[in-house]
């Protein structure tokens, strides 16, 4: 900036100078707005963090900055009875749920993208309809089914088992992606003597990796964040609680102590955010795929 300012003033026409000034003003305007927006998005995290590290007494005041840093709050939360169990349950629900969703949804998405059959549009419409369905619509009979007939209330199985029978959103997203893979690849594989299933596994799946990663992430996050499911099926049995469900009871146990509650909140947010940094690209691609390439 300074270097060019020294060497160029003689050669600059007034019009070029105005254009440069407009560009500079534009730059300042855009970046000021961006900084203001960033404050709105980041400050809540900062306040959660600062409060999580306050002493019990200070957390009851209006102070914004901790007098002393109580890192042991994080350990107190970690060692709260049940917290580790909630972690394990959440990992089981999210891990197994994601694996089952992928196993069951990929063949269905492939059939919808590739095969021609009567009723294909009807199937696709039903997939979209169930994708948009609030889970509360069918919860009463579903609860009776799992609790009264299969005696599985008090566990997370009523949430995990259905994922072995596809998840509508995953089917839809995978199908959208599979449509973009040229048919020729599969046809060539079939000429080489591959069956449809072999072609799917050997040719299509490696090409669909970005979409599979996106679906896996979305499903993992869905399970991690789910509150309604564990509330319905697991609430009666604290040994089956997940982090999202257990977190609110944490507030109860610590009453007005916002510091420990915020420390717990931080510990529930952290894994999701760390996962995001590792899988940023897959994530953003997935979001775009749901909306733009309809």
């Amino acid at each position, binding site marked *: 900036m300074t270097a060019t300012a020294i060497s160029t003033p003689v050669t600059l026409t007034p019009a070029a100078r105005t254009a440069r000034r407009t560009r500079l003003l534009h730059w300042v305007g855009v970046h000021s707005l961006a900084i203001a927006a960033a404050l709105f998005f980041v400050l809540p995290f900062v306040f959660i963090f600062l409060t999580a590290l306050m002493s019990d007494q200070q957390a009851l005041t209006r102070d914004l900055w901790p007098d002393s840093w109580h890192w042991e709050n994080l350990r107190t939360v970690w060692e709260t009875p049940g917290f580790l169990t909630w972690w394990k349950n959440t990992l089981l629900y999210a891990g197994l749920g994601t694996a089952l969703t992928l196993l069951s949804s990929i063949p*269905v998405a492939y059939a919808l993208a590739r095969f021609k059959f009567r009723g294909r549009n009807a199937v696709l419409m039903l997939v979209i309809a169930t994708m948009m369905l609030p889970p509360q619509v069918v919860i009463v009979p579903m609860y009776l089914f799992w609790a009264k007939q299969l005696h599985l209330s008090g566990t997370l199985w009523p949430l995990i088992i259905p994922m072995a029978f596809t998840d509508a959103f995953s089917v839809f997203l995978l199908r959208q992606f599979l449509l973009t893979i040229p048919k020729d690849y599969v046809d060539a594989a079939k000429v080489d003597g591959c069956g449809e299933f072999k072609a799917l596994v050997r040719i299509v799946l490696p090409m669909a990796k970005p979409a599979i990663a996106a679906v896996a992430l979305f499903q993992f996050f869905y399970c991690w964040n789910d509150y309604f499911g564990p509330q319905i099926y697991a609430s009666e049995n604290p040994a089956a609680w997940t982090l999202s469900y257990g977190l609110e009871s944490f507030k109860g146990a610590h009453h007005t102590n916002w510091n420990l509650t915020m420390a717990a909140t931080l510990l529930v947010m952290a894994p999701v955010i760390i996962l995001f940094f590792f899988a940023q690209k897959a994530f953003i691609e997935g979001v775009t795929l749901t909306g733009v390439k309809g």
Partner: protein
Amino acid sequence: MTTLRQKHRRETARTLAFLSPWLIGVSVFFLYPLVSTVYFSFMKYDGFTPPTWTGLRNWQYVFTDYPFFWPALRNTLWLVVVMVTLRVLFGLGIGLLITKVKTGAGFFRTAFYLPYLAPPVAATMAFAFLLNPGTGPVNNILGSIGLPQPGWFNDPSWSKPALTMLALWGIGDLMVIFMASLLDVPQEQYEAASLDGAGAWQRFRFVTLPNISPIVLFAVVTGVIQTMQYYTQPLIAGKVASGVIGGAGQQFEPGYPEKSTLTLPQLVYHLGFQRFDTGGASVIALVLFALAMVFTGFLMRSMTERSAA
């Protein structure tokens, strides 16, 4: 001839095999419970004694006597009009902003996107803390610069605006969708408009908007559908703000303060799982189903129009 028929039969068997997980899933976890919900909506059933036929009494109860139904519907309308509109405008604004940022674009993109990932229960509890009228940092700051300090989640006229702020904080999904569609607008259309002497606003109005209008429609319709499913945030906000919290066994009457955070999904839980009124819960579920399907119909039509174009 026979070989052709055999081939056809083989293809049908193959299609059925690939679709089988979905066929079972949609039958057991959607069609059966949907039919069952219709059945229960005409039954009196508390989950223990056998169901008995009551005709339209559940429907009548929900629409005329159940004090939570109309407030929940009014809240839903408020959220559709205010929250969905603001989310689309804000998402578009943030999307535009991020396409213009040149320095530190990666930092800003991540900062704007991250809150979307915060688990709803954690995010809502965090906002209940940030906005709590006693010691919350937001009122703290508002007070120190001499602005009024609302009761947020504790004030019936501020609870929905507070939920809206929470929803705007998690704008990351819309930001990414708008960002991608803005980058897809053909650059030469902007250049042509500039040559014709169009200013920034005119370029936005006559080049950007027409190009991204399908995405705006998509954002509005999915926003409305998400509002029909709005459950965790209003429930947790009400629980934390009212002080009634603590896991299983604690009975919470939803909607705190003064029914201002009631939404339809909460009523299914309230009637079905707190009052053991299976029939009433089924009626609410069917209302919710009808609303969700109407807007899904809009969504499908807009999607087929887009792929036809």
